[in-house]
């Protein structure tokens, strides 16, 4: 039942994403075909999760697990049901002080490990929040811990541009823009966390420099 609803929802989402927005995807073939794998992207908009989930074929939908903030996505019962059953998020409590033993999102890394062990594909936003639209913030290090514990899972960087223009934080009005989705070369675990974070930051910098984006201010 929820699986059927999920497929219906993402069919509708695909129509909106492809028609209202329109994507220019470079190197789609680098996206993971199976788990375990981690897709990491910059975060500008609520559309990010949805668009990334629409990049893979519907037959892979059951493998996708976006990691999302519990304070927002589990804010009320309806939202929580939608987040857990349709988006199938792994909730994460962003402030360590608010994590309660046994509550959802209390040990986000453990759930991520379990998902990867089960051959799923995680979607992560290492900037931590959407922040200023179309500006990249420093990457948080949780992703390095995750990669260290799961050296077999490739980490695929994906840089998106335009989604923050179409639906920035704090707005409910969707304005159509073509969006760029640049997939970077998957990263294999290099052996230590500092080297991993440097590689990741470099990949994102290179992807962001691939095109001169139209100014937005």
């Amino acid at each position, binding site marked *: 039942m929820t699986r059927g609803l999920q497929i219906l929802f993402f069919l509708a989402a695909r129509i909106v994403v492809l028609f209202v927005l329109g994507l220019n995807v470079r190197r789609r073939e680098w996206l993971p075909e199976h788990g375990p794998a981690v897709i990491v992207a910059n975060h500008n908009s609520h559309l990010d999760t949805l668009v990334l989930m629409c990049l893979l074929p519907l037959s892979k939908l059951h493998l996708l697990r976006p990691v999302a903030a519990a304070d927002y996505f589990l804010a009320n019962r309806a939202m929580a049901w939608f987040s857990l059953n349709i988006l199938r998020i792994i909730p994460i409590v962003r402030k360590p002080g608010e994590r309660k033993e046994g509550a959802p999102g209390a040990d986000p890394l453990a759930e991520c490990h379990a998902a990867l062990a089960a051959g799923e594909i995680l979607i992560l936003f290492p900037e931590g929040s959407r922040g200023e639209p179309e500006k990249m913030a420093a990457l948080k290090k949780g992703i390095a811990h995750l990669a260290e514990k799961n050296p077999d899972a490739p980490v695929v960087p994906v840089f998106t541009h335009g989604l923050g223009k179409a639906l920035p934080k704090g707005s409910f009005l969707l304005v159509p823009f073509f969006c760029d989705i640049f997939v970077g070369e998957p990263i294999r675990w290099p052996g230590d966390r500092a080297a991993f974070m440097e590689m990741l930051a470099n990949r994102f910098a290179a992807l962001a420099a691939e095109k001169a984006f139209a100014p937005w*201010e």
Partner: protein
Amino acid sequence: MTQLSGMTPLQLAIAGIWAILILASIVVFALKRLQPERDHSELVSRTVSWWGMIALFTAAFLLSHTLSIVLFALVSFLAFKEYLSMIPTRRADRRVLFWAYLSIPVQYYWVADGWYGMFAVFIPVYMFLFLPFAMLLSQQTEGFLKAVGTLNWGLMLCVFSLNHAAFLLVLPVTGNTDPQAGAGLLLYLVFLTQFNDVAQYTWGRLFGSKPIVPVVSPKKTWEGFLGGLLTTTVVAVLVAPLVTPFDWQQAAASGLMIAAAGFIGDITVSAVKRDLGVKDTGSLIPGHGGIMDRIDSLTFTAPLFFHFVRYFHA
């Protein structure tokens, strides 16, 4: 001629376009075979895209007028979205951009309704006056003039200009009660505009040496332009009896006008791209670039041809 194999002139014209497409595809296939050492991938993807575009256009054309109007509205929407995605925009203007998008279905509704008076003024008068007002409400005056100027220009080019092509479908032509008269004129305009693009490109590739405006578009040459102008005019005279009420002088004039205006539309969009530092307006049509790269010439030929028809025959 109209009785040929029981087809209407319009269907015959569409069949002719398919014949040209098939012939061109055979030439491309032969080129690939005869010159395997050269890279023909762009030519191949261009040809494949032509199949898609002509199939879509034929389907809409044969099914209904309304569907054709909807198809043109979609083309306007995609072109306008491409335009807004490549130009600098201001965050404060998001709401205004949304209003500008909303004007597309409204403007195309006037076409479906056949209301010429409103069609002719909605964007150039009402939207022209409304958009700067909507924009000043955010009270961000820095960059105001540039923002309102670029927005209006894009709306005129992608929506209002192109909209004229669709209005041909409902334009009453004097002394002609054939409901397909408008469709014939639209087909004539679109076919000649696209044919002229290909003709100028081909003449330019074969004999081009003297550039016309090298800073804007180094590949546009006098040889390509004049060769295209001549070919398009000859074709315009030849096919006019099939789908238009034109005598040969009018057909020749419209051929010359479409060839010249198409060229100007093409280099105008080239100038915009050069200003913005982009090569293509997008990546929607493989081998062609964006949708604006394909319809740039049509945005100039459509309003001129429309008023030419209206002046002489409506």
